[in-house]
């Protein structure tokens, strides 16, 4: 019995598999669709997982970047004794000395650190396992701290210091040392700079142990500065956003890939109807046929999934350097540019392939299960969209659209993604009906027999192509959506950088006197000096910061406003209104026109600006008004406008004249160049994904067209017989494909923009609490339009070529067969 069943299984399987033997292209499409879908999904996942793991490691090892700093208030000194007093009170701090070394014309920043307490500030100090890993044998704490001491610097910095009097200091070449900086022990730095017992600052652990007395009781002359409040922002929120966007993109790509699979599987089930009926008629139980077909699909899914993982791996490896560079630029942490195999990633890829296949094959399996045993085999009803089918799709789309606000009401990230999926699927489902309606309209306007036939024939083919067109539409929409999002992301981020860094130079003085001297010195050398003064204040019940800014085109032209009242900059300059950051606006529910309580009296809000990475509320007001309200705020910080090509020289002169440490002067052109490079790389990653999704859609279209080509010969033969040459028919075919692609592209534009809006205004807000302003790029739309035409051309070329070369005999046989 068992051997009998086994033999039967072998026969049934042979019959099922023979289908693929006869149609290898269809098998290739099935596998390619699944493979590409898996590859896109898992490739992006790999990139994400790797980047996250890398900078989590980096963050663990070194702390998350800038540590809080304690600095002396204007004019006062910070000494070694202050450091010891704070430590003896339980404060976890470590001293820093900053200064500049001169050697002829060369200037090198000197950074004095205290390695023993420095490491105790970060969790890495408690990581016993790592304590012995990694150090070179040359690292010698005794030599580092004992005069003449050791200094760490790059080879270039060491060359710049060649011949300088460093009191016998030995320089250790460290390729990873910061540029133009010599790192020495704090005591050595005090000696080299002639600072006596003075220190520049103390860095503090982010979390101090409980029970340490407050700062003003131990060292009232020191102020604790928030590392986020200065020009450096916390980019973690931005990198998270970047990852989320990539994931959304991967999911969309996967859906596109599934359309191919669905079409290939659907076709295969239809075409095998005869074989299945025969098998059933021969007595093979229905359950057995279904089980074997499911097994066949599972094998295909595993094979294609595995191949997809390999391909995704290759893709991720190719993209990784760009992503690594992007993230290291954004985050400042080193992300390894190479991949590691993570089991979770492989499993998720295979799981997605299996789930996707199940989804794509479900319809086919259900149809097979319901198939009437004795009904005559139809040629290919799968390819013929019935009016009823279209109606059903529209109804389904309607249900999805109704579900959309429900998803939004659920809220959260899941709700956002669900809404996204609903919207996209609804748009895809409704596409064939929309195209059908357009064609119906065209049919009433068509003049001439050939045009009439062309329109009618196109309408008839819509059914066969609808899945492929839906895939193309989704691919285009995804590209428009993600492209718009990345573009918005870029313009927002650079705009936000402009907010912080719109002037050429930013100079921080150490004392008010020095600040005045710097402004005097700059008065004849810079185009404009824009003081930026700030004070701490309670804003809507939370500690925040108020900035006084000068009235200048620097702000008028660059400030990234999310909302603005008319005449906002004038009312700001005249002290009649203020700007608030998005965080304050959202948290306190304040909008334009609302009044906000401020020290010295409430003012109306004239605008809201984006302020990424800053967790605290912030207010901007006119400089004069600020001066009246905060007469005691220190006047230390200023922006300097100067011709960009003179900025470098002016910065050097300024540092020289006032002996300012490197951290006191920020040159914006450098900062901006770096951040723009980051986005060029992000774009490169996005472009690569664009090409891949369009390729997937192209394959879907090609599958559809090839399938149609084989079954619609009976419809073409009469037209040919009526006197239309094959070449003309082929050209018409290609034209049809193009027109359909263009129509699909046009349909994809609003869908894509809607997708972008959802990503920026719903998903991003749910995930991060802030909204990215949408920035629609016409060049992007044009580029994608061209891409869709090219995709259609590439997909339509082969079927058209085949049609042009078809032998008259093949066409004649149609008539012979009819008899």
């Amino acid at each position: 019995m068992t051997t009998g069943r086994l033999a039967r299984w072998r026969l049934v399987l042979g019959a099922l598999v023979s289908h693929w033997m006869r149609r290898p292209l269809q098998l290739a499409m099935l596998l390619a669709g699944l493979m590409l879908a898996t590859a896109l999904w898992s490739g992006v996942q790999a990139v994400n997982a790797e980047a996250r793991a890398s900078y989590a490691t980096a963050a663990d090892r070194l702390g998350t970047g800038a540590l809080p700093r304690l600095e002396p208030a204007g004019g006062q000194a910070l000494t070694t004794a202050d450091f010891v007093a704070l430590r003896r009170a339980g404060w976890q701090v470590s001293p820093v000395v900053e200064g500049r070394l001169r050697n002829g014309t060369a200037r090198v920043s000197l950074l004095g650190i205290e390695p023993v307490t420095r490491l105790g500030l970060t969790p890495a100090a408690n990581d016993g396992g790592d304590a012995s890993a990694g150090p070179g044998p040359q690292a010698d704490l005794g030599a580092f701290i004992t005069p003449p001491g050791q200094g760490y610097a790059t080879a270039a910095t060491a060359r710049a210091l060649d011949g300088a009097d460093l009191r016998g200091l030995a320089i250790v070449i460290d390729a990873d040392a910061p540029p133009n900086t010599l790192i020495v022990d704090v005591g050595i730095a005090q000696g080299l700079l002639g600072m006596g017992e003075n220190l520049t600052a103390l860095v503090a652990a982010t979390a101090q142990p409980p029970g340490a007395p407050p700062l003003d009781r131990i060292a009232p002359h020191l102020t604790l500065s928030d590392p986020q409040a200065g020009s450096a922002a916390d980019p973690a929120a931005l990198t998270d956003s970047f990852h989320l966007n990539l994931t959304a993109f991967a999911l969309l790509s996967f859906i596109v890939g599934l359309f191919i699979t669905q079409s290939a599987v659907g076709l295969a089930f239809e075409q095998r109807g005869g074989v299945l009926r025969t098998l059933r008629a021969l007595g093979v139980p229905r359950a057995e046929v279904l089980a074997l077909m499911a097994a066949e699909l599972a094998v295909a899914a595993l094979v294609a999934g595995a191949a997809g993982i390999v391909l995704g791996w290759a893709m991720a490896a190719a993209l990784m350097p760009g992503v690594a560079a992007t993230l290291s630029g954004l985050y400042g942490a080193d992300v390894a540019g190479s991949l590691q195999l993570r089991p979770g990633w492989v499993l998720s890829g295979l799981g997605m392939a299996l789930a996707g296949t199940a989804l794509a094959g479900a319809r086919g399996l259900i149809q097979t299960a319901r198939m009437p045993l004795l009904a005559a085999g139809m040629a290919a009803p799968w390819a013929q969209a019935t009016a009823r089918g279209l109606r059903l799709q529209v109804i389904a789309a309607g249900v999805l659209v109704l579900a959309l606000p429900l998803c939004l009401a659920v809220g959260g990230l899941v709700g956002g993604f669900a809404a996204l999926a609903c919207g996209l699927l609804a748009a895809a489902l409704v596409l064939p009906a929309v195209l059908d309606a357009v064609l119906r309209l065209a049919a009433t306007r068509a003049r001439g027999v050939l045009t009439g036939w062309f329109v009618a024939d196109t309408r008839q083919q819509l059914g066969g192509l609808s899945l492929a067109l839906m895939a193309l539409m989704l691919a285009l929409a995804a590209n428009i959506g993600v492209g718009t999002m990345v573009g918005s992301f870029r313009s927002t981020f650079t705009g936000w950088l402009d907010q912080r860094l719109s002037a050429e130079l930013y100079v921080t003085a150490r004392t008010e006197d020095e600040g005045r001297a710097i402004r005097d010195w700059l008065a004849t050398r810079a185009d404009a000096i824009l003081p930026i003064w700030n004070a701490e204040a309670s804003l809507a019940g939370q500690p925040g910061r108020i900035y006084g800014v000068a009235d200048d085109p620097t702000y008028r032209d660059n400030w990234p406003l999310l909302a603005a009242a008319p005449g906002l900059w004038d009312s700001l300059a005249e002290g009649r209104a203020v700007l608030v950051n998005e965080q304050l606006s959202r948290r306190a529910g304040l909008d334009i026109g609302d009044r906000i309580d401020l020290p010295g009296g409430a003012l109306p809000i004239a605008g809201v600006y984006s302020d990424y990475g800053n967790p605290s509320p912030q207010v901007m007001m006119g400089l004069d008004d600020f001066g009246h309200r905060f007469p005691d705020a220190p006047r230390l910080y200023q922006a300097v406008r100067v011709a960009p090509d003179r900025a470098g020289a002016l910065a050097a002169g300024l540092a020289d004249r006032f002996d300012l440490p490197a951290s006191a002067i920020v040159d914006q052109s450098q900062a901006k160049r770096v951040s723009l490079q980051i986005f060029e790389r992000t774009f490169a990653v996005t472009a690569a994904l664009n090409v891949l999704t369009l390729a997937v859609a192209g394959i879907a279209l090609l599958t559809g067209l090839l399938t149609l080509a084989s079954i619609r010969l009976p419809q073409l033969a009469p037209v040919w017989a009526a006197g239309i040459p094959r070449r003309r028919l082929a050209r018409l075919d290609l034209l049809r494909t193009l027109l359909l692609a263009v129509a699909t592209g046009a349909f994809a534009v609003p869908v894509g923009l809607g997708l972008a809006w959802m990503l920026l205004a719903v998903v991003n807000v749910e995930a991060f609490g802030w909204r990215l302003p949408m920035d629609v790029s016409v060049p992007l739309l044009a580029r994608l339009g061209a891409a869709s035409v090219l995709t259609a051309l590439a997909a339509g070329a082969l079927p058209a070529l085949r049609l042009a070369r078809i032998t008259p005999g093949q066409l004649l046989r149609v008539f012979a067969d009819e008899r």
Partner: protein
Amino acid sequence: MNARRAGLVAALLLAALPGAAQERGFAGLGGDNAGYALPDRARGLTFPRDHGAHEDFRIEWWYLTANLRGEDGRDYGVQWTLFRSALAPEGPLQGWAAPQAWMAHAAATSPDGHHFAERFGRGGIGQAGVTAAPFAAWIDDWQMAAPEGAAGIDRLRVTARGGDFGYDLSATAHGPLVAHGQNGFSVKSASGQASHYYSQPFYDIEGTLALPGGEVKVAGQAWLDREWSSQPLDRSQRGWDWIALHLDDGRKLMAAQVRGDAPFLFGSLIAPDGTVQPLRQGDLMLDAGRGSPPTRWRVRVPGAGIDVTIDAVNPDSGMATSVPYWEGPVTVEGSSRGRGYLEMTGYPAR
């Protein structure tokens, strides 16, 4: 960016630090001792001088362990340890150039919890150090010091605080100082490596523990170990097991073995009046129970009729500090009853 790189340079240097990160041994203690003072059999001990730091020796520690009973009836243990590590055999005693690095560990252990913290400091500037008279040992806000007017180390106030615990204890000695080995010259290996080693095992101690569940008043016994050397271990020795017991009959027992190719055992049996009987290889037997590190031991001194089993109050008393080890209170059962402390170093991390 600079801040992060500075952190990396610090990590690099500290990881290679022969002392501060690796003081308690196992890696650094068998190392190079060129230029440092060496333990001397004829040196003897001089007080109060020897309560203070011996900067010309490479390594040194002040090590207090306490077995406590809370007013809630539960057993507790407390550890307060300060390690000194010289980075160079000589150098100034004051200022940033002083070649001394300090590290400290504090822990509080209950049957169901083990809390610990670690501190690092530089010598020469006052952040950490030890003075002999009046006695004070400190790092940051942790300290173990004689209260004003008290001589020597007969009375101590011991405080420390970590992220989730803290303690403030006062100890009073009811017996003399105890010199181990020969006049405090304690041999640690067959090839003659040695240290200077004395203890004060006769403290009564009381005070308050602050634990995540709230404050507990505690009282019990404490043991202070003082040891300094420049190379106490032979290169082949990988770690040690150290046991200090307060027996209910008033005797104290220090039993230790340094594990190498063959274990090297040594110890001291201390009578209630402070008379010391040094224990050598053959006088003393230590048998580890299961586990790594083993938290149950059989300790035998046949000549003194001692055959006891010690058991950890909390087997989960690992110190996941920059150099990990195991340190926690134990109970004593068998020929004598009592309590004590167990320290195990150089076991592979669990």
